[in-house]
Every structure is written in C-alpha cells, then in structure tokens.
C-alpha cells in the first residue's frame, strides 16, 4: 500500500464520509426543485467513490482491476441512456 500510515488515511476518509453525510442531512431541509435528486446522488456518488478508492483499495490496484471496477458504470450508463431514450421519445397514442 502506498500510504505510510494507512490508519491515518482511513481515519481521514471516515471523517470525510461523516462530513458528507452531514451535508446530505443538512441540504435535505432546503428545496432545490428538480435539483433535489441530482444533489443527493452527487454526494452519494462521491461517498461511494471514496469508499471504493480507499476502503476497497482500488487506488492501489492495477489497470485490470480498474477495468473490472469501472466497466459496470459504463453498463449502468447504457441501461439508463437506452431506457431514457425510450421514455423521452415515446409518442402517446
């Protein structure tokens, strides 16, 4: 592992996660209209990314592991993109 003191890194990451959780809870009292869901998803994605990078050690892995870890994100994009294309281009009878 690259870091000389992994426990310190883990602690910092944990603090970051707690801070992001606080943000999620804090912003929940404001109404941003259509941005409500994107904001919640953005914060959640940052948290998931940090967990994958540090707690799941992705940051220290080789390119093959990166391909396996990120390809499903591409598939998720396809699932959403194709389904959304259907839903937004449908013509009601």
């Amino acid at each position, binding site marked *: 592992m690259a870091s000389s003191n992994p426990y310190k890194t883990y602690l910092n990451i944990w603090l970051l996660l707690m801070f992001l959780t606080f943000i999620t809870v804090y912003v929940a009292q404001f109404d941003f209209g259509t941005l409500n869901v994107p904001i919640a998803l953005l914060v959640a994605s940052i948290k998931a990314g940090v967990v994958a990078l540090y707690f799941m050690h992705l940051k220290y892995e080789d390119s*093959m592991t990166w391909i396996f870890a990120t*390809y*499903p994100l591409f598939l998720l994009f*396809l*699932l959403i993109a*194709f*389904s959304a294309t*259907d839903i937004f*281009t*449908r013509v009601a009878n």
Partner: protein
Amino acid sequence: MSHSHSFDKHYLEDGKGFKSWFFTHDHKRLGVMYLWAIGIFFVLAAIASFLIRFEHLSPGQTIVSAQTYNVLFTLHGAVMVFLFIVPGVAASFGNFLIPLMIGARDVIFPKLNLYSFWIYCAGSLILLLSLAAPVDTGWTFYTPYSIDTGTNVILVTFGVFVLGFSSILTGINFIVSMHKLRAPGLTWDRLPLFCWAAYATSLLQVLATPVVGITLLLLIGERYFGLGFFDPAKGGDPVLFQHFFWFYSHPAVYIMILPAMGIISEVIPVFSRKPIFGYKAIAYSSLAIALISFLVWGHHMFTSGQSKLINIIFSVITFAVAVPTAIKVFNWLWTMYKGSVELSTAMLYSLAFIFLFTIGGLTGLFLGALAADIHLHDTYFVVAHMHYVMIGGTVFGLFSAIHFWYPKMWGKMFDEFKAKIAFTLIFIGFNVVFFPQFILGTQGMPRRYFNYAPEFESLHQLSTYGTWILGVGFILMLYTLFKPVGVADSNPYRSVSLEWSMPSPPPTLNFEEIPTVTTSTYDYGTKVEQEA
C-alpha cells in the same frame, strides 16, 4: 489430505458418503453435483412440457384446466431457465473442466465454489417452495400481472434473486482462476476455446445478474409494500420493468449458449483431426458477443409501446450481434473442411448443434426485423426460434459434452451404437416438435394460449407426437449413459488438450506436477501430434 493420497485415488473414490460430497472443495465433484442437479431439474421441467404438449392434442380442455396450464408453462419456463440452463453448462462442465484445461489443481477459491453450490441449492428450494401456490405469470414475471396475481410471485422471484448470487460467485471464481492459475506457458492465445467461452460467460454472469436481482427486488417492493416503480397510477412505468428485466435476460441468453459454443469448439477439431480454424476469431467473437449482448435487449419489446426511435436502434444492433455468432459457425465448418471427420456420438451432437443453432439464429433475425416482428411477436414462431437456440443449441451442446467427456468424468465408455440411436431419435423428435411451431406462428397461433382455433389442430398434434419421439430418445440416452460398457483409458479420443493428459477419472488434485505448456491446444494432424 496427504500428498500421495490425492494422486493415488481418483476423485470419485476419494471419500465416500454424503458428507464427502456435500462438503467437498473439489471442482470436479462440484461439477458432477451441478450436472446431477441440472439433470433433475431438466427432467422436472421436461415433464411439465410433455403435459403442455399433451394438452394441445385437441382444442379446448384435453387433460388440464386453463389455470393448471398457465402454471405448467410458468413452471416449465422458470425451472428450465433459472435452475437448468443458466447454471447449466457453465456450472457443471465449467467447474469440471476449467482447472483441468488451465493446468491447475482447483479453481482459485474452492470454498467459495462450494458456497456457490449451496446457494444454488437454497435458491432452487425457495423457488420450488412456491409450488404451494404455483405462479401463473410465465417465467418473465411481467408487470402489471405479476403485481396483481394471487399466486406466489414473491417466493419465486426471491428464489431467482438468491440463485443470482450463485451465478455471480461462480463467474468471479472462473474469471480470477483464468487470470491467476494458468499453467506456465499457457498464454491467452493457447487457452482452450471452451475457457474463452466460459470467460465471456462469467463476465456476463458478474455484470448482468445484479440488474435482474435489483429488478426482482423492485417487483417484490411494489407487490408487498405498494411502491410505484411500474404502476402508472403511482407514477411508474410498466415498460420499465421490461427494460430492466431484459437488460439481464438478453445477456442471459448468451450465458446459456456461449459455454455450449465453447464445447463445439473443443469437439470439432478432435473428431476432424485438424487444428481449429480461426482460433483468434472464435476466441474474440466470444468476447464480442459478451459486449454487444448488452445492447440489444429492446428487441424483446418492439410491440410493448416503446418509442419508434429506440425500436430502430435496437433492431440495428440486433443484426450486429449476429456477426460474431456467424463467425463461429463459419470457423467450425472450415475446421471440418478436408478434415478426417469421425462421426462419433459427441461429434453428431456437435454437428446437430451447428445445423439447429443456425436455424435458431437466422429465425432470430426475422424477429429482429421490426416489420416482421409485429406479425411474429408472441406467436409460436418465437417459441420455435427460442427452442431451436436453447435445445438445438445449448442442450445439444450439453449432450455433446456429456458424451465427449464421459470417459474422463467416469472412467468408463458408453455404448456408441445405442447412443447414436438415441441421438437420431432426439434429433428427429426435436424437429418434429418445433418445426411445425414455426408454421403455426406464421399462421398467427399466439404463444401461451390454452385454447386454439380448429385449423391449427393438425400441426399442434404433429408437434405433440414429436415430444413422444423426443421422450423415447431421452430415455434411451439415459439408459445408455447409466449402462457403461467398458473401462476408458486416459485418452480414448486422442485429444491433445490438457485434461486428457491425466488418468481417467482424474486424481483429486489433478496434476502431480503442474505442466508447462509449449504448444497450441489444437495441434491435430501436425508434427507435434504425430510425435506424441
């Protein structure tokens, strides 16, 4: 386990009794147990299909009520798909063969492998428990009916959810094994094509299965808690279920067929005594299929009311997925060209695979064409197409494997003559069952209907008679396999693949010394083979 013990005894002898099997870490024993399990479920689901066909001997009620009929086709579909054909070849022969073919003593995570099998058993049990109030939705669980029906949808879908974990864990095990455990010298371009196919299959299992798991959880959530994912009255979208369901279930078609294609790539060179033609093309086409298969799911939904634009996009990509499939077929044919072809039972099943799978594949293109699909959607044409691919393809591939690796698996030989008679009956019976269904479909006979118009009677009867021929063929095949006629030597078919380099059946830990690979897996008719 002492060192010498694991090499003196073969894997079938090494430990007796239920516990030695149910707690084994040995990939070969797990492969054999999967083979037994899928065999039992195949018989169960086949019995349901015989009853379905019997019901269609005449219009109206023949032997079962309309509700029982709905239950029978759901049971047939759900058991065949989730308990038999998805684990199917990959879990049984994948487990048995991959470590042998890559020169390893086991898969990389043997305990995880056993755990996958237990999960498979648990999922199967949960699914079968639903028979207390059997489901009548069809194996696709389409909303809104699956939300409204009073039958046991939650139990079945939860069973499928659990089975998914078995599939994912097996996939991970195979992928990592092939990355980490290949013998020295066994480079990716020397890897047997069955392994390439199993690798592509594993990718699909790992990447696609979570989506169906989540989809079925959403369905359970909607059914149990009244959440509104798919109900338009609550802001949901019923077509969304179909999107999510087929996002898994179309790649799943390739989970079912790819390992069988791998088998054909192994059997044909051995019985043609020629190196496989277009090794790289076959290997990479497996990966191409795995990648493109994620982009075609909407062709199941052309008449669902999805948008015209997305219909066109899915239709075009569907035609693209036919290309890597056709590449394989042409390469198999070219492998046989000017070869010294021996029509053994395994080879006959492989040849039948090419013939029947080509019919199944080409009729798939009819269904992928938008205008034709409007006419053919949800008719018997689809039923026939799908069975030509799944039986004509996967099941014939599985039968080819069962006969080809029979000497390796059991250390015995079967009666080739009887096996060939069984093959002939199965081949004829299969075509008599399903070819008339193409015609029925083009004439407008809808699938899953209990009743039918009188003008369809003769073709329905012909199709039902075919199941009787097919049934006799299956029984004769089983009789042949359960009545071995002699002891097999280590390599009766003179294969040059690694799994034949050890005694039959293999010792528990496979290789006393991990081999070093210096040549291709398909060196037939070359200097290397003649010197061997």
